[in-house]
């Protein structure tokens, strides 16, 4: 039997409410049965573990300069080689990942939370919706990195600045998706029934609407995570990110580009780590979407 996921209006009819519950309960099982999803989960576990365990795996200050060890190619002693200041690249990549993933996680949580609240309001109140959607239109078309660059210049480069500006920029696409889902779900009979028996709006939202819109939120969250990691790296790379005293993959690449001819490995490894992360998150998002919306999966 195929499970119906009611994410699109044409799939919705009176009896489909049950599909929401069934879908959400078995997401894990179906994720585990999907090879792409499994691969991405394994990749993300490796990344998370290496970030958390970085101080144990590579003890010592990753930014410690050692002039005698400049430009050592990858080998037994330095697995990823050393950079122009004699810093161990493996250490830089492991410790840099902590910042990159932390920023990604925090930005995802902040922007998705705001998007869910505003999306729910937007889906329920037409007057607010008109204003919010125009704001979203404005934010969606404009390149977020340019806004974030301007913000970093004004507020000064720091982790807080990066998190704030990326969160603001990434609210817009998620808000649009949550709102669309809420618009679909609010027309369901179960919501009508709940309203008829007098369930208060807040409870209606937390108890009935939120669970029903959680699947697309989950898919969106993995894409927002990857956009946030990429955004932080891009901002830090051009020097308006987390600031030179902190270490992230983007920061590590900033100076590396000046030595690309002499020591290509210092460009290679932080970038590979970045790509590996984004790939894992994109694969997770893709397979989640396939699992949650079989209508799309058919075409892949």
């Amino acid at each position, binding site marked *: 039997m195929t499970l119906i996921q009611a994410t699109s209006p044409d799939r919705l009819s009176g009896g489909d409410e049950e599909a929401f519950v069934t879908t959400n309960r078995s997401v894990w099982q179906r994720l585990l049965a999907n090879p792409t999803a499994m691969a991405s989960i394994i990749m993300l576990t490796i990344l998370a573990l290496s970030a958390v365990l970085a101080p144990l795996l590579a003890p010592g200050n990753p930014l410690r300069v050692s002039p005698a060890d400049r430009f050592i190619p990858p080998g037994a002693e330095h697995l990823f080689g050393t950079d122009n200041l004699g810093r161990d690249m493996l250490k830089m990549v492991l410790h840099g990942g902590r910042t990159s993933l932390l920023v990604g996680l925090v930005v995802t949580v902040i922007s998705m939370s705001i998007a869910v609240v505003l999306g729910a309001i937007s889906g329920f109140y037409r007057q607010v919706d008109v204003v919010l959607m*125009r*704001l979203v*239109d*404005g*934010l*969606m*078309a*404009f*390149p*977020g*990195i*340019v*806004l974030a*660059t*301007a*913000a*970093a*210049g*004004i*507020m000064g480069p720091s982790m807080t600045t990066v998190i704030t500006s990326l969160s*603001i920029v990434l609210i817009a696409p998620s808000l649009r998706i949550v709102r669309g889902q809420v618009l679909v779900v609010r027309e369901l009979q179960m919501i009508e029934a709940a309203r008829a028996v007098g369930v208060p709006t807040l409870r209606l939202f937390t108890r009935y609407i939120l669970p029903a819109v959680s699947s697309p939120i989950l898919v969106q969250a993995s894409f927002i995570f*990857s956009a946030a990691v*990429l955004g932080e*790296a*891009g901002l830090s*790379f*051009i*020097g*308006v990110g987390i600031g030179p005293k902190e270490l992230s993959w983007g920061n590590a*690449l900033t100076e*590396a*580009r000046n030595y*690309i*001819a002499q020591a*290509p490995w210092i*460009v290679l490894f932080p*970038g590979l780590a*970045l*790509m590996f992360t*984004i*790939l894992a998150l*994109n*694969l997770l998002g*893709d397979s989640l979407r396939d699992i949650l919306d079989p209508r799309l999966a058919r*075409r*892949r």
Partner: protein
Amino acid sequence: MLRYLGKRFLLILPTIFVPLILVFLLLRLSPGDPAGMMLGDQATAEQIAALRTQLGLDQPIWVQFLLWLKGIVTLDLGNSIFFREPVMQIVPRYAGVTIMLTLVALTLAILIGITMGLISAMNRNRPIDRGVVTTAVLGISLPEFWFALLLIFIFAVTLRWFPVAGYNPPSAGVIAFASTIFLPALALGVRQSALMTRMMRSSMLDVLNEPYITTARAQGLPESKVIGQYAMRTAAMPVVTVAGLSAGYMLGGAVAIEIIFALPGLGRMLVEAVGRRDYPLVEGGVLTISLVLAVLNLAIDLIYAILDPRIRYQ
């Protein structure tokens, strides 16, 4: 058609004003005195006060907002603090490079996307399709600034086919221009081309299932005509639709690409202006990018309306 265009034009206004208002608010509401920061430690109190008056910072915020709106409407964006000349004279010098870069990158992305998507869909589930799909997933995950560094290492440093950095304007000749714009445009276009490949592939697969394609084939039309004339035109529509979003994304990505390849474009100008706290120039840069995007989106809407007559009557 005119009514349709008028409606589209109104919808584009938020695209121009939302980013500008955000930057305006950030600038005015963030702690610290911009005038003091712009002039540095050695400035006297009189100098700071004079600059505050010149920038209108001593006025209430709503007056500042109205003055700022007036400035935008009359295209008087003030003087750059660093260059000491009108923003309106500086920005166009840089904007051309960025527009060129984005247009070339967008063209590359659309060409690659449509071709690869088509090849993939026509060979569904064969090895070549799997190869394209896998490459597209990798392409979407490729940070463009890192890809740019890889391109430089392979094609400029090792093979020496292209210069490492620098820019020749189109007036310097097609080959000179192409040699400096190709690598940056490729780096900037690669993620979007991967996205477009996936989009083209899935929309082509959908279109090939449509009854009118079956009819066309049943009538004995040659396959090249069925695909080239009937299927492709419909399938390419979603790709055209996202071109506007892609262009916006590329204008953002152009910041890093311009820095890496030392292209004298808007993105680099913006980062330098941000570094120098040259706020009038920052606002001018953001305004220009908004305007470029608005014009581009309007152009895409036009193309869309020409391709699909139904759009005009909605």
